């Protein structure tokens, strides 16, 4: 069997526009999902740590509900079921064209598909993040908590200045992993007709049957996006280590004088 690859069928004309639009849509929904997941995680952590038994119960239900059901089912639920429970006026307002809805790259965010996708990805990912960060907080040596208490720290000050900085650092790699998962899982939103990268590659396949080329290009774009995100999220870690090195070197030079 002879395989003939025709990259021009994917990288020029209408297919190229679809690929670009799909890629930018994936980028934007990833950004929105990460922001939403992070905000929700902060709220859930606050609820768990300061909300008493009720707060802990709410978070426990949230975590088990969203971690133990398939994301695709959650997407379908939000888009096909929950969306229709919203007030009609609001749904009509979303369906109208708005100038504020246009993001750079001509991606429209104020649409039922984008909102449902970002919402589902954010809620799903927050359920994982809250457990990762909790584990990072638990890994802080108990002795440091006693030391802070013995110095007269209040619970809040102890959390802010001793637990949180170290807990976040402990949890950082797993958290980055969850952010990357969110990016990859956004491909499931193709199931609700959201025109992100996977949706567009499939569209090329049905348009000119260049399935191999289309999925290859799509995969490479996911890979590139993942690599760029890894770089961005790891930069603060490298930067911090380099700064500690520089501070030490500089202060030692000063002290030698």
């Amino acid at each position, binding site marked *: 069997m002879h395989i003939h690859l025709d990259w021009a069928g994917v990288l020029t004309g209408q297919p190229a526009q679809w690929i670009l639009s799909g890629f930018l849509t994936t980028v934007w929904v990833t950004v929105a999902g990460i922001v939403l997941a992070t905000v929700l995680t902060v709220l859930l952590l606050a609820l768990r740590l300061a909300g008493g038994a009720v707060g802990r119960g709410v978070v426990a239900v949230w975590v088990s509900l969203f971690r133990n059901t398939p994301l695709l089912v959650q997407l379908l639920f939000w888009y096909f079921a929950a969306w229709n429970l919203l007030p009609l006026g609001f749904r009509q307002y979303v369906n109208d064209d708005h100038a504020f809805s246009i993001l750079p790259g001509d991606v429209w965010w104020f649409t039922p598909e984008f909102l449902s996708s970002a919402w589902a990805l954010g809620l799903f990912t927050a359920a994982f993040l809250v457990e990762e960060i909790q584990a990072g907080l638990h890994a*802080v*040596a108990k*002795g*440091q908590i*006693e*030391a*802070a*208490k*013995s*110095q*007269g*720290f*209040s619970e809040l*000050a102890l959390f802010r*200045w*001793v637990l949180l*900085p*170290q807990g976040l*650092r402990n949890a950082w790699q797993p958290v980055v992993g969850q952010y990357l998962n969110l990016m990859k899982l956004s491909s499931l939103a193709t199931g609700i007709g959201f025109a992100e990268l996977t949706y567009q590659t499939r569209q090329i396949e049905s348009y000119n049957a260049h399935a191999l080329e289309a999925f290859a290009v799509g995969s490479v774009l996911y890979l590139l996006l993942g690599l760029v995100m890894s770089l961005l999220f790891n930069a603060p870690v490298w930067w911090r280590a380099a700064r*500690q090195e520089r*501070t*030490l070197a500089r*202060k*030692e030079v000063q*002290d030698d004088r």
Partner: protein
Amino acid sequence: MFAGLFSASVASATEAFPVQAGTVEFRQVSKCYGNHPVLKQIDLQVRAGEVLAVCGPSGSGKSTLIRLINQLETVSGGEIYVDGKPTSTLKGKALRDLRRHVGFVFQQFNLYAHLNALDNITLALTKVHGQLPHEAQKTALALLERVGLRDKAYHLPSQLSGGQQQRVAIARTLAAKPHIILFDEPTSALDPETIGEVLQVMRSLAHSGMTLIVVTHEMQFAREIADRVIFIDGGEILEQAAPEQFFTAPQHPRAQRFLQKVLNPLHAESREP
């Protein structure tokens, strides 16, 4: 009488639990974990400025004794008085005020792992005591100088030896200008060659006005620096004496056995009678 040197800057009128002298008194203090008694009706008085060494076998309750004073553990019965005021019902700000004045030095140092030596000292100064960053930094550098670690100010705890970490921890405690410092086996986790540097710092604190209560296995420290030694076993104070008397003529048979084991381990009786 030396306490006056330290009280001026900390005894502000808004404090819920000011500590000015540094006396500690236990009255009939008990501590149980479940049904297991750790301390049994302890009576003990510590004078302001006194250096008290607490000795005893492991599991005797000596660490618990000092952890009760700043409520890292809570009493099960009886009452502890600091500066003559009862402490067992303190909560919230009053408890935090008590703790600010009562330094605690841990066996495992417990430095904040994400902060360098300097920031370990300044953190509580800026976040608990409300000092400005540059004031706190000045205080911290002076204290690091005092414990001989000025050149390690920007090192992380993981880049310091055990002895250096413990000296930073002592400097961190001193920064709050405490009237009482509690030491929980401060040299037990150290390599033998770094014990000396920590003991020397501790010696420099003795008889400078602060009350020091030191749980220790360092018999030389207890003998040369303490004003008084108490011996605890089975949750009871079995002996209290001046160091010279305790080490040369211990009265209680269990104190005698303990000293023989600690001072002369190769020739101690191998079995309890």
